[in-house]
């Protein structure tokens, strides 16, 4: 068990402003210092998080099935998906770069979805299991989020750079749109998730996840 002797702001009847960190009595509607709306915890954190995670799962399907870019070379067109891009890089012999794209585009988004679903489930079931590790998992998920955009940037750069008349042209595919959607929606899901809910379970009193 983790040491829970520390005093939390909630147990002292204080809420922390999400914008300026000022501590004010619970029930204050607007922060007296910066004017932001005050909430003890993120409003409807778990519900909004799950809704966004489901949206991301749906967007993740076309992101992987549709081509992310087309290469028109001397009259023939070649479509490549995200996984196809990784395979191509391995064939070109650039293993480190293939690893970067594989981690950023495949492992991070799917790992992030699994981690966030697990965190929501653990809070819902009032788990007491290693809150410090779960907070670390959340922080890592939050930090890794934006790195998945790397594949979308690669497409944007190649499309802008490679247009040599009829010789060689690279065009974007719709997977770029749905994949960018996955990244943004999971980033918002991580922002909406309130990691303090993990710790609230240790104090064991009433359900604050809706406050």
């Amino acid at each position, binding site marked *: 068990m983790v*040491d829970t002797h*520390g*005093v*939390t*702001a*909630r147990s*002292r*009847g*204080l809420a*922390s402003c999400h*914008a*300026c*960190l*000022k*501590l004010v009595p619970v029930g204050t509607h607007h922060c007296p*210092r*910066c*004017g932001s709306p005050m909430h003890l915890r993120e409003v409807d954190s778990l519900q909004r998080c799950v809704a966004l995670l489901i949206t991301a799962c749906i967007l993740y399907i076309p992101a992987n099935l549709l081509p992310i870019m087309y290469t028109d070379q001397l009259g023939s067109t070649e479509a490549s998906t995200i996984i196809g*891009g990784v395979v191509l*890089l391995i064939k*070109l012999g650039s293993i480190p*770069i293939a690893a*970067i794209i594989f981690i950023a585009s495949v492992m991070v988004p799917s790992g992030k979805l699994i981690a966030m679903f697990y965190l929501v489930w653990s809070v819902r079931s009032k788990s007491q299991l290693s*809150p*410090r590790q779960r*907070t*670390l998992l*959340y*922080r890592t998920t939050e930090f890794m989020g*934006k*790195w998945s*955009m*790397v*594949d*979308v*940037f*690669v497409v*944007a*750069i*190649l*499309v*802008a*750079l*490679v*247009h*040599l*008349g009829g*010789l*060689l042209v690279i*065009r*974007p595919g719709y997977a*770029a*749109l749905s994949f*960018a959607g996955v990244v943004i929606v999971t*980033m918002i899901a991580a*922002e909406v998730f309130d*990691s*303090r809910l993990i*710790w*609230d379970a240790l104090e064991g009193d009433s359900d604050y996840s809706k406050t």
Partner: protein
Amino acid sequence: MNESEPGSIACHACDLLVEVSSLKTGQSAICPRCGHFLTAKRQDAHSKVLSYSLAALVALLVAISFPFLSFSSGGLESVMTLPQTPRMIWEYGLPAVAIMVAAFIILIPAATLLMLLFLCLPLHFGRWAPWIKTMGRWVFHLQNWAMVEVFIIGVIVSLVKIAKMATVSLGLSFWGYVAFSILFTLAIAALDRYQVWTEIEALETTHG
């Protein structure tokens, strides 16, 4: 007890109350329970933020004004500038992706830097400004959506992908963007949310 506690922070990750009023310049505090970063008191924080932000804006100006990458194959050459990255994707019928790319690599970082200037100039000179709280509320939120360093990795991956097809060379703007990325990160890192808001509060009290 139902009063605010000056000098304390509730950890944003786990809600533990931590006393930070004894923090000295050059020290930083992390949450003893969950390990989350709380605050850091830095020397000359404002002048650091101001100088890094100004330098970063100049570097961004260089990054958008000159050729970023050039690509040649079979006697044909195409040159790419930074603003063309979102524009070409727009022209191929994906305006939403174009807006996201433009926002994440140019617009949001630039807006963050301008906000840092508008926030830290009045704080540095000890003058009250009516926009100071708006800047303080937005800048910490906005900076999470800047993807400057991710874009640089994107450029490197792109280079590897097309290196076999043709000759690619880096332009002046690429180096401008690398400098921009470093300065942007330094500017963001020099600003501390808790300290800034403590200063805003103090400034408001003295200037009515």
